[in-house]
Every structure is written in C-alpha cells, then in structure tokens.
C-alpha cells in the first residue's frame, strides 16, 4: 500500500481547519485510515461483548440495541474509578499548547488529531450527560448528544492515537490524552468496537503465551534456531534454557524478538551476552510475551495478559525477572504490573550475579530492564568489547514513547551504544528523549490497512532521521521497542531510504568479544564485519 501513496501528495498538509465546526464535520472513514474490526473468534475467546463479523467501512456497525445505555453506564463507572478521567474531563482550558505536539496532527492536519480535540470528542458527551453546565446550556457549553455518528467518530479517532503521551509533556496540567484514549477504547470495547490487531494478539497471548500465537514447541524451535544461527556467527553453541525450574532469572522478551526481523538480531545479541557472562536464566514458553496488547485494550485485559509473568516466575522458582527490549511492555511493567498483579513477595530484590549490583529501583517489582542490566555490566568492566565491529554503522537512537515518557529510561541505552560503537549521532533536540516522536504505529495501529495514517503519523520521526542521515550519514536507527522494529522499516524506507533499523543488543552482540569464539567475520545479521568483506569470499 505504501507504494501507491505518493510522498508529494502526502506532504500537502493543510493545517487550516475546515469551514464547518468540528461537531458538524464527519470523519473520512476509509481504508488507509482505519483498522479492521476484530474477528469474531478472538472476541469470543476473550469473552468480550458483541462478537460478530463487521467492518468499520460498513454502514451498519451492528451495535447492541442498548448501546447508548451501555456506554453511558461505562462512563459513569469510569468517572467513579479514575481520578484521571474526571480531572482531565474537567480542567482542560483549550489553551492549545498540545495541539501541534501530536504526530498525527503534524502529519495529517486533521484538527481532530489535535490532542485537545481528540479529548473533546469524549468531553462533549461528558458535559452533556454529567455536568450541570452542559445539561443547562447544551451546545453553548460545548455539550453534544451521544449518537451513533459520534460513536463512529470516537472509534475513528481513538484508533488514531498511539497513546504516546507526547501531548501530556506540554500540557500545563499534564492532561494525558493517551489516558483519555484508553478510556475511550475501553468504552468502545463494551459495545464490541474492537480492532483486530489488538484483540487477536491479545487472544493469542492469552492462549499460547504470546501475541503471535506461537505454541510451546514453536517457541522451543525458534530458540533452537537462534542458537544455531548464533553458532554460525560465533562458533559456539550457547545454552538457551526454556521453562527451566530453579534458574536464577526469568527472561521475558517481546515475542517479535524471536520471530521478527530486525528484532531477531538483538535476540542473538542477548543469547551471546548471557553465554559470555554465564548467566543462569531461563525463557518461558508460557510467559513468552513481554509485550502486552491488553494495554491498548483495557486495564482488565492488560492485567489478564500481564499476570503470566509473576505466575510463571513463581512456578519456576526464579529469584527475579529480567525484561527485554520493548516499549509498551515497559510501560506496563513500570506503571501497572506491581499494582495489578503484585506483590511479588516470593521473589528477591534483583541483584546482578555478575557485578553484585542491587537494583534498588526495582525493589518491589523485581523486574529489571535489560539495558539497566547491561549498562551495569559494562560500567563494571565485565565485558570485553570491540567497538570497531560496529564501524559499518553510523548510528542514531530513537527513544520509544513509553520508555521515555512512562519510565524515563534515556541514558542507559545511550551509554551502552556509546560503549559498543564509535559513531553515534543524536537527532535534533525536540525529537528525542521526553519529546521523542512516535513511530506512528504504536498502540495496535501498526497495520497494513492503516498505512496512510502510519506514514503520516510517522512523518515527524522519519523527518528527524532524515536530518541525521543527510547530515551525518546515519545508516542505522537503533531502538529498544518491538513495535518500533516492526513498523519503522516501512516508515523509514518510505520517507528516508538507506537507513536500517536495529536493536541496542544487536550492537552489543556485534562488539562483544566472547571467550573461545572463532575469528569473527560476521555480525549478528550474518553480514560481513567491517574489514572482513574479502576474507569472507575467499
């Protein structure tokens, strides 16, 4: 689909709102800007409401008869349960500071992609039904009736928000439109308005332990493949235990790491690293997903999927949990896991068996981020690293939304990259760290049918990559997020070209000098290392 969209046309962005007021402007619901509705089977598997065959491009969305009552009741319930919802509904002053901070607005010019207006979609109904001013003054007070058209508009725009929280950084009250989108999506789910790329991965994950629906033997196969591939590169067959009881550490990665490209190269990096330091760890096929599409669905779904990590840690009898490179996974682990499924009092406070460092910052959750772990190893001089093995790369780093704005893990990956490679270049200041731009495909929106919005929403990110590509010859965009690694290749190819996507631990794997390794000629991609191009061919 991306081939048929012309760049020149896509960048004709008109930031001027249409002549009709926003309450009277209907959304342009069509392929390219929407995600398909969830398939019946997945909805049923998760016991969610209103399973049926439907498409958002249909006229009739086959809502339940009393849909309005269900939604309003759902709103009432959430108003009572979430202070965020109440406060964010009440205090926005429509100052507009958030307006041009959203990548979807920047890339599309659609005024309802301004975070403030996205939130107003819900707020207008809230005013009508739950506030005195709205009841008395109606439209004058910005109130609006909940109709089927309004509901469709919710669906359209709440699935055009990647829950990236960039708007929240700039709002003087911290109003987080991601939170409002989450409320909106929960409400939509109550009447069966789900998208397939969220609900089906969630159903898969619930059943098989991972979003991709890989069954245990498939998982075992993937790990075995990786071990073989790594052997070809380093000449050592490493151990990679699965479901091993009594291991010290349970290692949980997003499933794309062992199944997707370019994630996989980072997965090889993990394996090489753990072999080198002799880590006593295990994977789990039951908890074979760190990512959590439940986050994009509802707090309950998030809890259901997340529960496996602690349950499995308990069953296997590990001491603590280590987590791989993933973005939204770390929002869940940092901000929700312990609250939802803790306390993990059967685990120990994480302590690196190699350096002895105690991870005080994970004292309660007992779960450490892989870059925290690796940065600690490097700082303590436990790894022998040959930076020149990454000299084929001119590197930049993309902060993923959730690690940046729902955690603040900014320096660890940078420290690692600078320790394992020579050529690192930052993108411009307004595009990194807490101001980073989304890949355009987060929060379940990384689908083929949503391609136009992905390319539009990804424009600010791609544009910053282009900047360092032109200026410094950057040829790899590293990141530590499975969704990024899945959607950025298409995006960057479209807007920039000539820039690969890579993992932080791919670079680690390249640079790591492993005891007893054969003379390294290949990097984690099985491409020749710098200076080894000829010897390869001989």
């Amino acid at each position, binding site marked *: 689909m991306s081939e048929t969209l012309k760049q020149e046309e896509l960048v004709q962005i008109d930031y001027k709102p249409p002549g009709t007021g926003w309450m009277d402007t209907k959304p342009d619901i069509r392929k390219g800007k929407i995600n398909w509705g969830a398939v019946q089977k997945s909805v049923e598997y998760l016991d969610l409401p209103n399973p049926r065959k439907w498409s958002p491009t249909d006229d009739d969305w086959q809502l339940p008869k009393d849909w309005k009552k269900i939604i309003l009741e759902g709103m009432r319930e959430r108003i009572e349960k979430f202070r*965020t919802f109440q406060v*964010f509904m009440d205090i926005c002053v429509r100052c507009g500071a958030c307006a041009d901070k959203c990548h979807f607005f*920047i890339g599309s010019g659609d005024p309802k992609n301004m975070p403030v207006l996205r939130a107003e979609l819900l707020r207008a109904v809230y005013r009508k039904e739950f506030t005195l001013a709205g009841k008395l003054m109606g439209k004058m007070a910005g109130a609006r009736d909940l109709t089927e058209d309004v509901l469709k508009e919710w669906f359209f725009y709440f699935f055009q928000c990647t829950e990236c929280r960039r708007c929240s950084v700039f709002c003087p009250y911290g109003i987080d439109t991601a939170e409002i989108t989450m409320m909106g999506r929960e409400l939509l789910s109550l009447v069966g308005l789900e998208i397939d790329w969220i609900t089906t991965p969630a159903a898969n994950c619930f059943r098989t332990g991972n979003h991709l629906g890989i069954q245990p033997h498939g998982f075992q196969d993937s790990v075995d493949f990786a071990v073989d591939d790594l052997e070809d590169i380093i000449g050592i067959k490493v151990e990679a235990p*699965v479901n*091993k009881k009594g291991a010290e550490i349970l290692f949980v990665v997003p499933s794309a790491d062992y199944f997707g490209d370019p994630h996989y190269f980072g997965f090889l990096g993990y394996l090489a690293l753990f072999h080198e330091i002799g880590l006593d760890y295990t994977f789990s096929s*039951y908890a074979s997903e760190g990512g959590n599409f439940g986050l994009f669905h509802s707090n*309950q779904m998030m809890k259901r999927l997340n529960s496996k990590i602690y*349950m499995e840690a308990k069953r296997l009898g590990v001491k603590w949990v280590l987590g791989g490179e993933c973005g939204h996974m770390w929002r869940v682990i940092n901000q929700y896991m312990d609250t939802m499924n803790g306390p993990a009092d059967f685990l120990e406070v994480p302590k690196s068996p190699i350096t002895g460092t105690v991870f005080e910052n994970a004292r309660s959750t007992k779960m450490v981020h892989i870059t925290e772990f690796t940065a600690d190893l490097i700082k303590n001089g436990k790894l022998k690293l040959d930076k020149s093995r990454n000299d084929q790369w001119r590197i930049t780093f993309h902060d993923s939304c959730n690690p940046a704005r729902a955690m603040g893990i900014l320096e660890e990956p940078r420290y690692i990259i600078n320790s394992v490679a020579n050529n690192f270049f930052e993108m411009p200041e307004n595009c990194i760290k807490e101001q980073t731009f989304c890949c355009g495909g987060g929060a379940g929106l990384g689908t083929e049918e949503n391609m136009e919005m992905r390319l539009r929403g990804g424009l*600010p990110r791609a544009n910053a990559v282009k900047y360092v590509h032109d200026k410094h010859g950057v040829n790899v965009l590293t990141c530590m997020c499975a969704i990024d690694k899945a959607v950025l290749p298409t995006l960057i190819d479209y807007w920039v070209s000539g820039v690969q996507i890579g993992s932080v631990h791919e670079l680690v794997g390249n640079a790591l000098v492993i005891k007893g390794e054969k003379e390294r000629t290949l990097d984690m991609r099985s491409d020749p290392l710098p200076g080894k191009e000829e010897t390869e061919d001989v």
Partner: protein
Amino acid sequence: MNALISFVAVIVLIIISFVGAQTLGLSYLFAVIIPYLAISIFIFGFVYRVIKWARAPVPFRIPTTCGQQKSLSWIKNNPIENPHNWLGAFIRMALEVLLFRSLFKNTKTTLKDGPRLVYGMNQLLWLGGLLFHWSFLIIFIRHFRFFMEPVPWCIKALENLDGFLQIGLPVVFMTDIFIVAAVTYLVLRRLTDSKLRYISLVADFFPLFLILAIAVTGILMRYFTKVDIIGVKDIAVGIFSFNPVVPDGISSLFFIHLFLVSVLISYFPLSKLMHMGGIFLSPTRNLANNNRVVRHINPWNPKVKMHTYEEYEDEFREVMREAGMPLDKE
C-alpha cells in the same frame, strides 16, 4: 461566533447591573444579596468539586516522565522532571503551579519544503498566561485593603512594589496594565490562530471578556472617575463582617464591577476555571515515578479471568512432550 456570544453576554450583564442598581434602585440586591449568593456558590461549588475529585481513586501511578529515571547510581537522574520521591514531585508541582513549567517548553511546529519539520521556541503563551495569572493574584490580594481595617502592612508593601508610575495621583499599578494587556492577548490569539478559533467554545471566551470587563471597570474607578472610596469600603467591610450596609451615592460603575465579580465567582465552580484546583490533583504530575520501588495500591483492583499454566500445559502437553520440554504433569 462563540466570541461574539460571549461578548454580548458580558454586555448584557453590564446592562443588567447598571439598570438594576441605578434605574431601579436595587442597590441592596446588588451590593449585598448577590455578592453573598455568589460567595456561597463559589465556596460550596469549589469545595464540592475538589472533594469529588479527591474522592475518586487513583488506581494507577502514571506520572508523565520528562527526564532520566533514577536507576543505577552512576547515571545522573532528573529528580524534578522524573521525580523518584515526594519531594521531587512537590517541587515539580510547585514549578508547574507557580511558573507554568510545562507551558514554558512549548514549541511551534512548522512544515517547510523538503519536507522539513521545524520546531521553534514559542513562549508567548507562557508569558501571557503567567502575566495574567500573577497579575490577577496580586490584584486580588491588593483588594484586601478594602476589606480590612486597618490595612495590613503586607498589603501596603505589595502595593508599593506594584506601583511604579506616579502621574499625579493615584499611583499606577503595573498589574493593572499587565492584566489588560494579557487578557487582550489571550482573546486575540483565540481569534487569530485558526486552530484555536476552531477549538474555542463560548466557555473559553466568556471568562476572558468577563475578566476584561472587571479589570476595565476597576481601572475606570481607580484612575478616571471618582468613586466614593469610603462608601465602597463600608460595603466591603460590611459584607465580610456580616454586617452589610449600603451607603448612598455609590457610583453605578462600582455596582457593575461588583456584579461582574459576583458572576465570575459563581461561574467559577461550574466551569473550566476549576483548573485552579484541578492542577493539584493531576496524577500525571503530582506523583513520583517510583512504581518499581513502592507498590501502588489500586483500591478496586479487579478480579479477572486468567489463563493458568496448568490450563496451558493441559492444552499443549502432547506437543510439549514431543519437543522435549519439561512438564509439570507427565
């Protein structure tokens, strides 16, 4: 359109109070009953709203982190933008409330040919907002000179700071100029920026025009027409000592001013002006990012259907056995 409606509404309010107090002679209504009513609505409304918010649970600790987390000891963390304890969160809130720190970061995005996206500095709104709010606060405090006898020294000191020009009598207060300028700017930006015009409701223009009218009537009274200060002070002190009096000969300008203020404070708890209270309760700003250190409790943590390992192994036992994977039940 929304601006016009708001503007007309304020004019109507002015006419009501003028006609009411002057022509109909309902000065007791305007000087005593309405202010009392307004103050009661304000206090009850405000407290009600804040209590309602405060009683809603905070199920999850979801601060927006805008800086490096506290993790390894040798990595420099940002204790304010990513607070790890209550003190950091307190400072973050204080900077937010007193200096509008988030708004200070505001940028303006422009799309140039290429395409090339450029993010420029854009602190005008911050400046306008800050000037407006601080002027408002100082003017509000200055008004205590009317409610209190004798006038406390701190109010006099504030007046001395605020007054910078003396063209004859009386001294010109900086805040009087600032508030008019700032409100005018806030109105104009809503009218001139097409995005803002698009999102602005009547409820966004109305308080601005109302405050502008209040400021202008106040300024007229202070600098241009002579109001009977002694009489005004009698009314004010009377209200606050629950011993209301209405002296004769008070100018209608004062009644207009007082009425508009009454409208403003009664409107306050019904409207977005409640952001004044809400900002303190915003969970993305007022909490520390220490979820991994201290468990946050959700009072309604729901029971959900989970999929246990036993169920999983039951479903996949055969394939697991074939793949040589360990099993709990053989």
